[in-house]
């Protein structure tokens, strides 16, 4: 057990290290200097003033230090929770911007991921080996998984937003309100949340349903199912067992899919200009704000890692096989 988690932690630690390093490295070795574009944007017409500003900002972002020093500084400040200052929203600290966006992303992602997983699995399990239902669930599932995230989002926005006018198609809450603890504001939030959520939920739903259906069919054909049938156990029990076992790979599947879902949330947020991390990433890219980019990226890596870790733990708890495996290879 210890060893298992030790190894997992090692992998996660390494992943984190590599991801953060890549993410630190990439912008720094790319062409173009963020400071000069920043200076260019200030429109300082006087060359001398521009030069002073350049020196000033280079110092401010620590870009005048040797590259290895920058790298160490980066880690050092990172552990102090300091992600640097955003260029795009200068002079707001990156952490502040991210913290402002995270609640939106989480509010979108967590329900979408969990609900689509639960509902999808339920549908898939229910449809497996039931001909009529199967024939309905499968095609719908496939269409949903094959749809590009943003197209589904665009369709929803167009159909339910622009044409039907039922839902707003932009923003996290109305521009005429300001955040407060009132029922109206909550409804307003919900109203804006519905379409992005629906598009994420629907897009992920099909995959889970199909995956579950296939797994369940496999389980229903397995030896233990046959044995139970031979002993006359009712379908209900057999299905229940099959479901339980089929859900396990789906849990791993969830871990595998997290990255993809994060990406999906990104384009969805962009379509609905929902104020989450996805929009931030796009902005950071468009504005060459690599401190912000690093921050958001780091946050996502952390989120995915933590989620994966939780999934790993859950998996160990629910699947006795992994536990036995951890004790050593000998059964």
């Amino acid at each position, binding site marked *: 057990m210890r060893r298992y988690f030790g190894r997992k932690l090692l992998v996660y630690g390494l992943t984190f290290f590599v991801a953060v390093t890549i993410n630190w490295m990439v912008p720094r070795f790319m062409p173009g200097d963020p400071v000069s574009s920043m200076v260019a944007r200030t429109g300082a017409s006087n060359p001398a003033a521009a030069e002073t500003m350049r020196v000033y900002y280079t110092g401010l972002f620590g870009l005048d230090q040797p590259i290895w020093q920058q790298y160490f500084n980066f880690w050092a400040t990172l552990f102090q929770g300091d992600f640097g200052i*955003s260029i795009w929203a200068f002079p707001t600290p990156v952490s502040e911007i991210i913290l402002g966006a995270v609640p939106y992303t989480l509010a979108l992602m967590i329900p979408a991921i969990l609900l689509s997983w639960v509902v999808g699995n339920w549908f898939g399990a229910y449809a497996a080996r039931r001909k009529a239902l199967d024939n309905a669930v499968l095609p719908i599932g496939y269409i949903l998984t094959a749809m590009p995230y943003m197209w589904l989002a665009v369709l929803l926005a167009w159909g339910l937003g622009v044409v039907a006018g039922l839902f707003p198609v*932009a923003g996290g809450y109305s521009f*005429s309100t300001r955040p407060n603890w009132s029922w109206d*504001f909550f409804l307003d939030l919900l109203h804006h949340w519905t379409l992005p959520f629906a598009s994420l939920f629907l897009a992920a739903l099909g995959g889970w349903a199909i995956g579950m259906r296939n797994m369940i069919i496999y389980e229903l054909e397995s030896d233990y199912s046959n044995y139970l049938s031979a002993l006359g156990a009712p379908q209900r029990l057999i299905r229940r067992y099959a479901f339980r076992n089929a859900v396990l790979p789906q849990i791993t599947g969830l871990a595998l899919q997290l990255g993809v879902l994060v990406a999906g949330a990104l384009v969805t947020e962009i379509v609905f200009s929902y104020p989450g991390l996805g929009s931030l990433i796009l902005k950071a890219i468009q504005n060459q704000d690599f401190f912000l980019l690093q921050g958001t990226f780091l946050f996502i890596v952390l989120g995915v890692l933590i989620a994966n870790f939780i999934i790993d733990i859950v998996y160990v708890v629910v699947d006795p096989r992994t536990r036995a495996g951890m004790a050593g290879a000998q059964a």
Partner: protein
Amino acid sequence: GEPTPNTQNTQAGNPSAVNPANPNSLPRHETLYTSGTQWGPPANFNAIREWDYATGTEGLVYESLFHFDPNTSKLVPWLAQSGSWIDDKTYEIKLRPGVTWSDGKPFTAKDVVFTLELGKMETVPYHNIWEWIEKAEAVDDQTVKVTFSTANYQEWDFQLYGRAIVPQHIWQGRSEQEVLDGKNENPVGTGAYTYMSHDQDRVVWQRRDDWWGKTALKMEPKPKYIVDIVNSSNEVAMGLLLQKGMDLSNNFLPGAANLVKGNFGISTYYPEPPYMLSANTAFLVLNTTKKPMDDPAFRKALASSINTKQIVEGVYGNLVKPASPTGLLPQWEQFIDQSVVSQSGFTYDVAKAKKLLADAGYRDRDGDGLVENKDGSKINLNIIVPSGWTDWMEAIRVISASAKEAGISVTPDFPDFNALVDKRSKGDFDMLINNERQLSNSPWTYYDYMFQLPIQKTQNTVNFGRYENKELWKLVQQLDQVKTDDVEGMKKVISEIQKTHLEELPIIPLWYNGLWSQVSNTTWKNWPSSVGNAPKTAPTMWRNWMELGGFETLTQLQPNAS
């Protein structure tokens, strides 16, 4: 209840039960929703950061001594009651009495001097005025006297209306870093609005009912609240506009022509092409240090090969106008010397381009339909615009195609913005498009942008093409020192500049970018328009445009009762 407040509260006279000082829901009929200026979260309210302060920081909160009316080309007294040159090197400003800061303190000449002297800090963007200003002093509470070492009249006028005055009693003692990088939350200004709240995606301004202009200028901006929405994208802006969630969109909305023509309740300044006022000129910048762009003949041939019409019609759907060969904006029409233009100007003419090339010795030697350098080496030019700037990306595709017709090989390329800036400032490019100079009080700002010398190692904001012509630069400096009321004097110098410009053509004007502005009449009416006696001010909230008429537009709005 109904959670879309767009439709809520529209019945007039709703006493709006919420506390007006801290309303959770702004009454629609008293609120103006705008967008198109702010591309990032409103991160600072620092009037010194004139490139990225939250929309309205200058104009709504901080004000300048004068405004400038592009229609009459005159300075309009604002915080200053008047200003005049008492001799060739001394300017005296008389301030308006009775103006107070929003914290109740009186506005005095000390504030003006303080603001000018802030520029002595090296990193303050107007630091360079101290190269030609000798001193600024407060003669009394209402009088400021500025003494010049070199009287740059044109540039001084630009400062007079462009510089936001900050309160000395608050800014005093701020370090250089704070002045440059401070957020300046809860800004205290003399303007008609105060800060109310902001979030990632918006900033909200609230009208000041004790604003001095109400009596002194007989002006009152009508919206009680102004919400500036952060741009996420053009399409979102268009969506909001169509859903009546926005009143004034200063975004570039592709297809705006259709909005105007269709029955959407959306209008623009002109009801027909080009729909928008012109705001700046898009130039094709040539790197004159490289072959063959160092050859005026080649540059002129290139200019003749560009099918600007197709850009205007195809890419922009007539939302823009082709530029005059001089590049001067329509507002400066009087300064364009038509005789020079007719003699040395250029138009799209493939045959002429070919002839110019042939005459200058650029011939197609290998029969690939593309000309080679005089020494026989291949010509292979790149033209760059930032990746993601869709309209420009389309535009350079057109340029590339039409240049090819004339036999010039031009390949469009779309580097990242950062990379482009890097190349641009280092002079590591062939051609690019740039429009960073806006309309101003004087064509001098344009010529300064085009021909400024000396060339630095990095050219960050001006003369990207590194065109070195000392004579021409002398003329530009000479123009700066012509008094702004001496129109004839200005014309004379400008005509000379134009002659050289068109003969040498180191930078090719292409089209006038519009003062993008789409308005909805649902909540507010009487928007500026070319039609009838509607106001003729600039319908915009763009930074640095509030003083060019943007603020006046707000004062002319009327609530739409229906």
